[in-house]
């Protein structure tokens, strides 16, 4: 935090620092390893010590995400939409804090940082509206050549590990996280290694937004160290490699093949504020097709 002091009348008041902590299973633990690392602003000035997560923290986060999956994926789409919209409402109220953190993290002017934060809030709103529409856009009835009702519906893949983009600490983060949970997946997100503070603060917003604990789990630390156990974890169903460089991405993709995780490879993004499409949602959806005989009206009412 840069404004370590606030002026009150004539004497200076010493500000209170925040201890940044992980967000796992709805709680705010420190890293079980007891490690922290120094987070600095764009000019190298110390901002805070962030938890440096271990393999064990990653595995704990998977357990929390798996535990939350049944409830979150089973909630009605409308209910998920209400909750994600609530995230936007909460964020709007804490805009000042995030503008401050994003400005420091990314070396932006206050107004540029405000643009980023506002775009981030609007992104939550955009995804909140998708919960009960994605099935209507990517699902539907299939006119099979036979007496069958045949309906394809999207369903969430499961537990998704997300490597948040390294550069865009907040807008980029939410742009990859929100689509994963919108459709009913649960997530473990690894914050930008250099700029993890907005992601860790987002945990505080999620905790007060009716998002059930474990739906989003936020880890900070060395991306490669945390991503490796997630990519090879047998109870993780998919991984978004947005925050990995080419070398790491290939390693992780190889590890992910072990249980055929769905892998979203890193793609160049020039401008995170550009309107997203549906591909970040569909990347983590399965399609389930249900068949049922339609029968026919025989004399007895049905042919079977």
């Amino acid at each position, binding site marked *: 935090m840069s404004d370590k002091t606030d002026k009150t009348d004539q004497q200076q008041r010493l500000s209170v620092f925040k201890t940044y902590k992980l967000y796992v299973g709805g709680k705010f633990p420190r890293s079980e390893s007891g490690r922290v690392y120094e987070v600095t602003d764009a000019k190298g000035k110390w901002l805070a010590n962030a938890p440096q997560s271990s393999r064990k923290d990653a595995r704990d986060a998977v357990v929390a995400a798996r535990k939350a999956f049944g409830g979150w994926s089973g909630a009605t*789409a*409308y209910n998920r*939409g*209400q909750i994600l*919209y609530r995230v936007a409402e909460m964020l709007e109220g804490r805009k000042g804090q995030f503008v401050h953190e994003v400005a420091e993290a990314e070396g932006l002017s206050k107004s540029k940082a405000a643009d980023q934060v506002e775009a981030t809030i*609007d992104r939550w*709103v*955009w995804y*909140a*509206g*998708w*919960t*009960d*529409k994605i099935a*209507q*856009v990517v699902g539907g009835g299939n006119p099979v050549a036979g007496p069958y*009702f045949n309906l394809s519906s999207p369903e969430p893949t499961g537990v998704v590990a997300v490597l948040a983009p390294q550069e865009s600490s907040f807008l980029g983060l939410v742009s990859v996280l929100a689509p994963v949970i919108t459709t009913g997946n649960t997530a473990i997100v690894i914050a930008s290694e250099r700029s993890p503070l907005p992601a860790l603060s987002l945990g505080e917003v999620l905790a007060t937004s009716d998002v059930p604990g474990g739906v989003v789990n936020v880890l900070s630390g060395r991306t490669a160290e945390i991503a490796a156990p997630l990519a090879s974890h047998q109870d993780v169903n998919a991984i978004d490699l947005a925050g990995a460089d080419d070398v790491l991405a290939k390693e992780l993709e190889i590890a992910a093949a072990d249980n055929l995780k769905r892998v979203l490879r890193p793609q160049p993004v020039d401008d995170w504020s550009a309107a997203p*499409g*549906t591909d970040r949602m569909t990347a983590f959806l399965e399609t389930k097709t249900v068949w*049922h*005989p*339609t*029968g*026919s*009206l025989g*004399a*007895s*009412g*049905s042919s*079977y």
Partner: protein
Amino acid sequence: MASTTASAFEYAPAPESRSVVDIAPSYGLFIDGEFTEAAEGKVFKTVSPSTEEVLSEIAQAGEADVDRAVRAARKAFGKWSALPGSERAKYLFRIARIIQERSRELAVLETLDNGKPIKETRDADLPLVAAHFFYYAGWADKLDHAGFGASPRPLGVAGQVIPWNFPLLMLAWKIAPALATGNTVVLKPAETTPLSALFFADVCRQAGLPKGVVNILPGYGDAGAALVAHPDVNKVAFTGSTAVGKAIARQVAGSHKKVTLELGGKGANIVFDDAPIDQAVEGIVSGIFFNQGQVCCAGSRLLVQESIQDELLESLKRRLATLRLGDPLDKNTDIGAINSAEQLSRITSLVEQGEAEGAERWSPACELPTSGYWFAPTLFTNVTQAHTVARDEIFGPVLSVLSFRTPEEAVAKANNTPYGLSAGIWTEKGSRILAVASKLRAGVIWSNTFNKFDPTSPFGGYKESGFGREGGRHGLEAYLDVR
């Protein structure tokens, strides 16, 4: 009913408090963001159907007011339609949230003005109203994904005329998709239920909605007709009777106005011999007695397989005897008041005609309140397809019971109507549900349930029940230029 026969199930009165709603002694028209008097200075009274108490005095819109409102909507259209979809979305999300916050107030208001039980306004109407705005809010910035091509354009000014049976819900069905797609609206609520639409004007004000985007014109049929006929209206949306729907279809002939009509129905509720009887009875009851049967998609014809007719009717009658008719604000009330004296006399005359034509009339023992407009739940047996009560939409708590032997006969009888809005199918056999559903000429088919509504689900009729769909992705098309 429970009020007349002492039973183990006597209930103490449990009235919902009226104090959550503050009804002003008079209301104006809502045009261009302001409440204003009617040009001709006319007013009308709106009464509580359960007590005949005058609730408020309302400005009555005439042709000049319609013109003023359409001009306000036209003026607002340019900016509103040019807003990014994400900004329109946020206005609609605000409206949805304010409705959620004020839902108890609006539920009590709706019950007072309409006469329907608080149980329904609280648990059905208001949650659906908020959900509808929430759903269409989310579409406002996703129209490119809706399947109508890239950047589909709005139509312009929508003239919307809604009925009195679900006043605020029908408003939501009309206004939410219209605004999401970038249109501006002039809406005329029904003359017997103007209040919730006027309170909605205040919700728009709280949400900071730009002036002129929503205009509310309480009034009678003449105002509705003037709105439909106005040359600067691009879209006409009407929910109401088939007779008026046909008149509107004639009126707009030769114009470029896009029209959607959601009209009457004579829904068949088909019960097969393998149906779970208790569950079917609940569905039949909700199908025809929900909102006193004043529902366009009501299951007003019961088609029961002959082999289970006696058993089903016995269960049904036993169930009807437990329905509680009375004060709509009482939380235990199942059956509220009929909306108006006019509607009550229409129901009464159709029921008398049913008796005169030889159908057998039955109602549970039921004491009706001495003031207000009331009609006891009524069954007709010995009904044939030729009977008026089996053909005409009664729009009241009156169920006609017919029987069938084979599924083909059930389908033939269900389809033997000029209407085609809804139907119900009760059977444990999935293939039979789908086989029968595929043969029914109706827009909404409920299987082993009835009267279910959701903003994501398209609703609308075949044949003379109207055309166009409201709700769901399909509901967007009614307000988009998709030529």
